[in-house]
C-alpha cells in the first residue's frame, strides 16, 4: 500500500534561523497524525512545507508515491490533492459561504457551476451549515467560519487534510463544534495531519502522536504511549506544563 | 467662549476700520498734456502693455538685448520700433513729448488689459477691437486702425478656391480667442462645423499646419506675413460697423484725452497712413467673400 505521505530528511530555514532540522515522517492512508509541541517548534512550518507554501532547503516530500519536492512539479496540481485549513480561517470576505466553497471546484476542477453548487450544498448540509450558505463570512461566528473553512478544503476532495491549530483562535465555547467535525472526518477515514494544542482531542482521535521539539520529532507513538508514558525528558516537561495550564 | 467673543470683537473693529477710500478723479484740462503733468503710472515714463509673444506685422525687428520678447519667424520685439503698433507707439510717445527711452513695455496676458483694479501700465496696445460691451470695463482711445479679416490656408486645403461665405460653411476653421476673427466666423460664416478657438495665434497656426484645421481667420495684415501658404480671401466688414483697434485704459484715466489729441494729430498729418503703408501690406486685389 502506498504511503499517503512520506517525508524524509526535511530541513527548512528562514534566513539564519533553522526551523526544521531533519524531519522524517511516514503517514499511511486513513491515518490521523497529531503534531504537538510548543509554539515555535515548527508545527506550522512543517504543514506549510507539505503544502508547498514554503520551499524546503533539503530533503523530500512524497505524496501518494509522487515526489512533490522535485524540480518541475506542477505546484497547483499538487495543492489540489492536499487540503489545508489555517488558524485564521481565511475565508474570502467578499463572497458568500457557498461561493467560498464552490470557487475552487469551479475554477480548478472545472466543475460546472451547477455541479459545484450541488456538491457544495451537500457538504455544507452534512456539517450542519446549510442555513448559512448565502450569508457572508462576517455574519458567522468564529466556530462556524472555521467549519466552513474545513468544508471549503474538503470540497476539493483532497487526499490528505492538514489542519494547523484550527481551534487556537476560537472562543472556548466554539471549539467543541469544530472538534466534532474533525472527529467525524476521522471516522470517515480522512487522512489527516493535525497540529493542535487540544490534548484531550488528540488523545481521542489520533492514531499516532508526534512531539515536535526545536525542529525535530523528538518522540512519536500511540496516544497512550505519549500521554501516559513519555520516554523523553522534554516530552514530559511539555506535558507537565500543559497539565499545569489546565489544558488536559 | 470668551476667546471666541474676543476674536469676533477684533474682526468687528477691523471691519469698521476698512472704510472705503474716496477716490479722487483728476480731470485733465487742455494744457495738462505734457510728460510732467499728465497722469502717468510711473512719473516720467510712458508704460505700454502688450502681449508676449508679440506677433508680426504689429511688432517686428530682432529682439533687443535684455528684452523679455523673443523675435522669430512670426514674432518681434516692441522695443525695436519696427512693426505697425511698435512704430505707432513711438510716434505717439513722441507726439506726447516723450523721448524714445522714456517708453517702457510691459508683457501681459490679454486678460490683464481689462481686469478690474489699478493697472501696472498707462494703456494696453494689443490689436484690441473697440466694442460697446468692452467699453463698460475699460476706457478706449479713439480708433487707430480700421480692421478687416482674411482667411489663410495651406496648400491642399478644401478652403482654397472658395469665393463665397456659404462655401466656407462646412470647413473646420480656427481663430484665436477674443479677436474679431472669431466674431467673423460666428457672424458672417455661421459654419456647420464648430470652429477651433485657441488661446493665441501660435496654437491656431500649429493646428492649421497639422491638418487639424482647413483655414485660420486672421487680421488682414497678418495674412501677408506668410503664416500659411495662401490667402483665400478677405471678409466684408462686420454688421456692427467698421471695427477699429483702440488703446485700452483704466476706467476714468484722464490720460485718454491727451492720447486722443495726439492720435488726432497723427491722423491729420498723415503719420498713421504712412505707418500703415510702411508696415502693413493690404492688397486690394485679394477677393472679398460674397
Amino acid at each position, binding site marked *: 500500500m502506498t504511503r499517503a505521505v512520506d517525508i524524509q530528511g526535511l530541513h527548512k530555514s528562514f534566513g539564519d534561523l533553522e526551523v526544521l532540522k531533519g524531519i522524517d515522517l511516514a503517514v499511511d492512508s486513513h491515518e490521523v497524525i497529531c503534531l504537538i509541541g510548543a509554539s515555535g517548534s515548527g508545527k506550522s512550518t512543517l504543514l506549510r512545507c507539505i503544502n508547498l507554501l514554503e520551499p524546503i532547503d533539503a530533503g523530500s516530500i512524497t505524496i501518494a508515491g509522487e515526489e512533490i519536492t522535485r524540480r518541475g512539479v506542477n505546484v497547483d496540481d499538487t495543492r489540489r490533492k492536499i487540503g489545508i485549513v489555517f488558524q485564521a480561517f481565511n475565508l474570502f470576505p467578499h463572497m458568500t459561504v457557498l461561493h467560498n466553497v464552490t470557487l475552487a471546484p469551479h475554477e480548478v476542477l472545472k466543475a460546472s457551476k451547477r455541479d459545484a453548487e450541488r456538491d457544495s450544498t451537500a457538504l455544507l448540509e452534512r456539517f450542519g451549515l446549510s442555513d448559512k450558505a448565502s450569508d457572508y463570512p462576517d455574519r458567522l461566528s468564529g466556530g462556524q467560519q472555521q467549519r466552513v473553512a474545513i468544508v471549503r*478544503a474538503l470540497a476539493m476532495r483532497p487526499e490528505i487534510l492538514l489542519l494547523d491549530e484550527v481551534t487556537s483562535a476560537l472562543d472556548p465555547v466554539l471549539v467543541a463544534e469544530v472538534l466534532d467535525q474533525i472527529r467525524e472526518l476521522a471516522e470517515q477515514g480522512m487522512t489527516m495531519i493535525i497540529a493542535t494544542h487540544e490534548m484531550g482531542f488528540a488523545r481521542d482521535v489520533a492514531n499516532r502522536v508526534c512531539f515536535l521539539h526545536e525542529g525535530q520529532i523528538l518522540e512519536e507513538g500511540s496516544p497512550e504511549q505519549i500521554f501516559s508514558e513519555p520516554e523523553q525528558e522534554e516530552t514530559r516537561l511539555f506535558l507537565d506544563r500543559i497539565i499545569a495550564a489546565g489544558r488536559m | 467662549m470668551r476667546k471666541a467673543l474676543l476674536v469676533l470683537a477684533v*474682526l468687528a473693529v477691523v471691519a469698521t476700520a476698512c472704510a472705503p477710500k474716496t477716490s479722487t478723479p483728476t480731470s485733465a484740462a487742455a494744457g495738462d498734456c505734457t510728460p510732467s503733468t499728465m497722469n502717468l503710472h510711473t512719473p516720467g515714463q510712458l508704460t505700454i502693455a502688450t502681449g508676449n509673444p508679440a506677433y508680426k506685422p504689429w511688432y517686428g525687428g530682432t529682439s533687443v538685448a535684455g528684452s523679455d520678447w523673443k523675435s522669430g519667424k512670426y514674432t518681434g520685439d516692441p522695443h525695436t520700433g519696427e512693426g505697425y503698433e511698435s512704430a505707432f507707439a513711438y510716434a505717439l510717445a513722441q507726439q506726447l513729448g516723450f523721448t524714445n527711452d522714456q517708453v517702457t513695455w510691459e508683457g501681459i496676458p490679454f486678460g490683464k488689459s481689462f481686469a478690474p483694479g489699478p493697472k501696472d501700465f498707462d494703456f494696453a496696445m494689443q490689436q484690441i477691437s473697440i466694442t460697446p460691451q468692452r467699453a463698460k470695463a475699460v476706457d478706449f482711445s479713439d480708433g487707430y486702425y480700421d480692421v478687416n479679416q482674411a482667411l489663410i490656408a495651406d496648400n491642399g486645403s478644401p478652403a482654397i478656391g472658395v469665393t463665397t461665405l456659404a462655401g466656407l460653411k462646412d470647413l473646420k476653421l480656427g481663430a484665436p480667442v477674443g479677436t474679431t476673427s472669431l466674431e467673423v466666423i460666428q457672424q458672417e460664416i455661421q459654419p456647420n462645423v464648430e470652429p477651433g478657438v485657441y488661446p493665441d495665434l501660435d496654437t491656431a497656426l500649429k493646428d492649421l499646419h497639422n491638418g487639424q484645421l482647413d483655414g485660420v481667420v486672421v487680421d488682414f495684415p497678418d495674412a501677408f506675413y506668410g503664416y500659411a501658404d495662401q490667402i483665400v480671401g478677405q471678409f466684408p466688414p462686420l454688421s456692427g460697423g467698421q471695427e477699429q483697434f483702440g488703446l485700452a485704459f483704466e476706467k476714468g484715466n484722464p490720460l485718454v484725452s491727451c492720447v486722443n489729441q495726439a492720435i488726432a494729430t497723427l491722423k491729420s498729418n498723415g503719420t498713421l497712413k504712412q505707418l500703415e503703408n510702411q508696415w502693413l501690406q493690404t492688397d486690394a486685389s485679394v477677393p472679398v467673400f460674397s
Partner: protein
Amino acid sequence: MASGSGPSPNVYFPPGGDSDPRLPPGSDSRWPKILGGGDSSARNVWIAVGSTVIFFGLIAVIVVRSPGWPEIKDSFFNGAEFRSSFPVILEKFVRNIFIFCVAEVLVLILALIIAVLRSLPGPVFTPLRIMAAAYTDLFRGVPTILVILLLGFGMPALDLQGIPDNDYVWAIMALTLVYSAYVAEVYRAGIQSVHPSQVAAARSLGLSRWQSMRHVVLPQAVRRVIPPLLNDFIGLQKDSALVYVLGVVEALNKATIIQQGDFNFTPLVALSLIFIAITIPQARFVDWLIARDQRKRQSSAAV
C-alpha cells in the same frame, strides 16, 4: 434646595445657576428658557448659528467696504453677464462631461493593467515591472497641461494611420495617460493591503496565481480603494478644462471666449459654480463612504 411648594417666583432667571437641582444636569439656567435654558444641546445650536452669522457677516462687511469692491463686483459678479453666459457655458460643459467620462473608463482599465504588471512576481517579469514603474514615474512627473500640449500638437504631426485625427482624441488620450499613472498607484496600494493569508488560502486550494489575483485579491483590493479612486476621478473632472489649449470648445474655452469678448470675468465665476455644483456632492459621498467603512470596522472589531 427642592421646595415642591409651587413654581419659583422667577421662571426666566431663576437663581442658583448650574447648581439648581430642579433643572436637568448639564443645562445652564442662566439662559432664558426660550433660548434653550434648561437644555444644553439647544443652547449649543444657538451659539453655533450666532457665531457663524456674526463671523461671516463681518467678513462680508470687510469685503464689501473695501475700495475696489464696486469694480470687482461689476467685473466678476455681474448679474447680466451671468445670466447671458451661464446657459451657453452649461451647454458646452456637456463636452467636459463626455471627455471625463470616457477618460475615466479608460483610466480604470489601463491603471488596473499597469498595477497588475507592476505586481507580477518572479525574475522573468522584470522588464514588465520596470516598464510599469517607468510609466508611472513619467506621467506623474510631468504636469498634466504639458502632456496635453505635447500630445495634442505632437501626435497629429506624427500622422499615424488608424487613429482618428481629432483634438478630442488627443485630449482624452492625454488625460487617460496621466490619470492612469495615479490610479495605478491607488490600485497597487489596494492590492498590497489585501492580507497575504488570503493569497495563501487561495493558492492552497489549488488556484493559480492569476486565478487568485482575479477572484480573491482584486475584488477585495478595488473595494478598499473606492474613496481614493473617487477622489482621483474628481481631479480628472476638473482637469477636463485643461483641454481648451488644444482649441476644443468645451466649457472653459467658451467661458474665455465670452470673457475676452466682453472684457468681463463673470463667465469664469459661472463656470466655477458649475464645477463646484458637481464636485461637492461627490466629495460628501466619499466622506460618507469612508465614515461607513469606519463604522463597519468598529462594529466588527467590537464583535
